[in-house]
């Protein structure tokens, strides 16, 4: 019923059953009749004093005798069951003799054939019924002495502690918001020796820190090197440019003799554009170049927002009391959002000016007058 590892529930009065065998058997060993039948020999292994104790197999004659006896018995049973199940001759005929109701015009006695219902052997037989998993033992079998001790003492002393379930403290849920002490949450960390931090953790964290430091240093030095290289490159570029400019300045004074400077042709914009398009390999049409291709004029259309809202709302299901799909003056409201309502504004200004002056305006600072007094806080 209950595990004997757990404390018995408070409401239970009866003894907690410990043995696997049923309760019906256990107290019976106390009665004289049973105790008389229990002998010391039942506990003493026969082979312990003589290993060569022979337990012969049954002889052929014994086997034959037993087989014949059992076979005839089984055959009888089988025949009976076969006759019962599929032989119509075995069906009983019952003569109904009771008085039939007067209004039914039947004979006073008629024959009813009682036949046992044929069952499909392939169908599960217990459909609809609650399947009984275990067949209860018959009540009339004799009581047997139990020849073993209570099962509770076959474990060592240490084991019950292992079985002890700690107080029901969930690590996952705390619906009532109780504060749960940390050592409780961990479970059963009973011995404090194990709770000290392992030396390995210190070593590990130190090593990790060192590794991190080293990696950072490396990255920094790499960056430094990169920066230096960039600087040098820049310097080199600058000096080169300087040199070039100097050379150019030098050459400006004495123009090159070999080069023939062609005068720039005066060309029209159209020709230039054509040339440009040709040089870039683009196929630009004449119209574009001449500016003939114009952007198509688009009319400045204005839509009423209601078109959209109505369209969007068209399929929406409305309450049957709601006659109109939107308020009557919605358009006015929309238009009046960004327009200044001068009347309202005037009203507000009037209210402000009528109220206590100075209370609403910006704070005005006045010059402090007590200049001549010595500074209290100065050194």
């Amino acid at each position: 019923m209950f595990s004997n590892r757990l404390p018995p529930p408070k409401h239970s009065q009866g003894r907690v059953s410990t043995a696997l065998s049923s309760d019906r058997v256990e107290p019976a060993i106390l009665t004289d009749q049973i105790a008389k039948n229990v002998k010391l020999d039942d506990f003493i292994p026969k082979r312990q004093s003589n290993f060569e104790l022979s337990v012969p197999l049954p002889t052929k004659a014994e086997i034959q005798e037993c087989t014949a006896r059992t076979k005839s018995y089984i055959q009888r049973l089988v025949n009976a069951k076969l006759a019962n199940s599929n032989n119509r001759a075995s069906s009983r005929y019952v003569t109904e003799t009771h008085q039939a109701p007067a209004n039914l015009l039947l004979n006073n006695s008629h024959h009813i054939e009682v036949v046992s219902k044929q069952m499909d052997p392939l169908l599960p037989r217990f459909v609809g019924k609650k399947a009984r998993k275990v067949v209860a033992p018959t009540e009339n079998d004799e009581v047997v002495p139990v020849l073993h001790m209570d099962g509770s003492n076959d474990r060592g002393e240490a084991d019950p502690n292992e079985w002890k379930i700690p107080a029901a403290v969930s690590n996952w849920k705390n619906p009532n918001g109780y504060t749960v002490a940390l050592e409780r949450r961990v479970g059963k960390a009973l011995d404090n020796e194990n709770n000290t931090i392992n030396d390995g953790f210190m070593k590990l964290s130190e090593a990790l820190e060192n590794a991190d430091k080293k990696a950072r240093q490396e990255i920094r030095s790499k960056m430094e090197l990169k920066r230096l290289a960039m600087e040098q490159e820049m310097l080199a570029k600058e000096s080169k440019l300087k040199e070039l400019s100097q050379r150019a300045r030098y050459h400006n004074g004495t123009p090159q003799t070999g080069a023939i400077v062609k005068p720039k042709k005066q060309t029209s914009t159209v020709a230039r554009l054509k040339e440009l398009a040709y040089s870039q390999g683009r196929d630009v049409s004449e119209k574009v170049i001449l500016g003939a291709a114009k952007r198509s004029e688009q009319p400045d259309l204005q839509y009423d927002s209601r078109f959209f809202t109505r369209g969007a709302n068209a399929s929406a299901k409305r309450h049957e009391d709601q006659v109109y799909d939107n308020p009557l003056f919605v358009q006015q409201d929309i238009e009046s959002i960004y327009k200044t309502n001068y009347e309202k504004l005037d009203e507000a200004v009037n209210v402000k000016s009528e109220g206590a002056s100075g209370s609403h305006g910006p704070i005005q600072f006045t010059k402090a007058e007590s200049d001549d007094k010595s500074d209290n806080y100065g050194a």
Partner: protein
Amino acid sequence: MDGNDHKVENLGDVDKFYSRIRWNNQFSYMATLPPHLQSEMEGQKSLLMRYDTYRKESSSFSGEGKKVTLQHVPTDFSEASQAVISKKEHDTHASAFVNKIFQPEVAEELIVNRYEKLLSQRPEWHAPWKLSRVINGHLGWVRCVAIDPVDNEWFITGSNDTTMKVWDLATGKLKTTLAGHVMTVRDVAVSDRHPYLFSVSEDKTVKCWDLEKNQIIRDYYGHLSGVRTVSIHPTLDLIATAGRDSVIKLWDMRTRIPVITLVGHKGPINQVQCTPVDPQVVSSSTDATVRLWDVVAGKTMKVLTHHKRSVRATALHPKEFSVASACTDDIRSWGLAEGPLLTNFESEKTGIINTLSINQDDVLFAGGDNGVLSFYDYKSGHKYQSLATREMVGSLEGERSVLCSTFDKTGLRLITGEADKSIKIWKQDETATKESEPGLAWNPNLSAKRF
């Protein structure tokens, strides 16, 4: 006295305190104690202490030959008993020695005699077993295994994956797969008189397979719950099945009628065995009993209530009319017909035992739920080997568990089905001799008499 100073907590302490004072006043100055006190003190000594004093006494006056055997100082009881045995072989006057140690005036005469007899015998030596082959193929736990009883050429295994597979014993190759059940196949039995195979399953069905066509030819309907075990009657056309509905049903093979239903167990039945003569059915159950049934009378002949816990396995001896049964930490063997206790095996701290097998060389194998294989000498109950199975690569350590076992017909190979979905075949080490592989120490004690 300083004893007066500190507070005496309870009556026991008071008693102890006064007895110490009395001891100091009366006996502390005596060179030799009065004989009645001396014997009482002797009685309080442990067996080992008494053995030590005996050893000292005997070595002080015995000859050279004895001294050699007694040089070895025992450190614990097992070594002490080893020394006892080696001494026993030299000493013809062992009874004097046993009497001295066990103090016949305090101990029962019967126990002394039994111990003497126990010491005078040695268990038979068996070669140790080792793994020879691992077969994979099932997709679930291998729950049952049966050997071809006629030719010893193949064996069949049933599994949690609802299939049964037939394997060649010599090569370990898959011969065929039989599918028909819809839940775990819990037990199979191969008939040696018909070409039939019977399988039972947790889906409440018992099926009869024709091994010539590899087809299901009959179904036996009637169990109310999952069926766990099947056994074929050795002489009649009957099969016995039992399971979670805690009844044994005997079916007529041909007509499929449940001829007899044996009611009596109070819990699910774990295993049934059929024998040719009464008791024709032996069943073990989770209600911690083994029952021997008289089939014709339809009731129990004898109920064996020595076991404390669910009796998961039984095994018949192939050469003698006895049966072994096992519950957690406890294996016993029983003579049949009357059911006297034959042997208590040295099975303490074995854990849950799932399966038992016995071969014709008097080796009893017990497969543990924690994957420990233990081998016993059947006659003496001596555990001579204990080894742990190795889970397959990719399996968890928790899947190390032996679920079923059988010896082949020669008794030279052991087939086990395990929770790591593998089938393992174990063989005896042929090169081993008694000297090279003595096995676990023979450590006889009367505490094998368990309650």
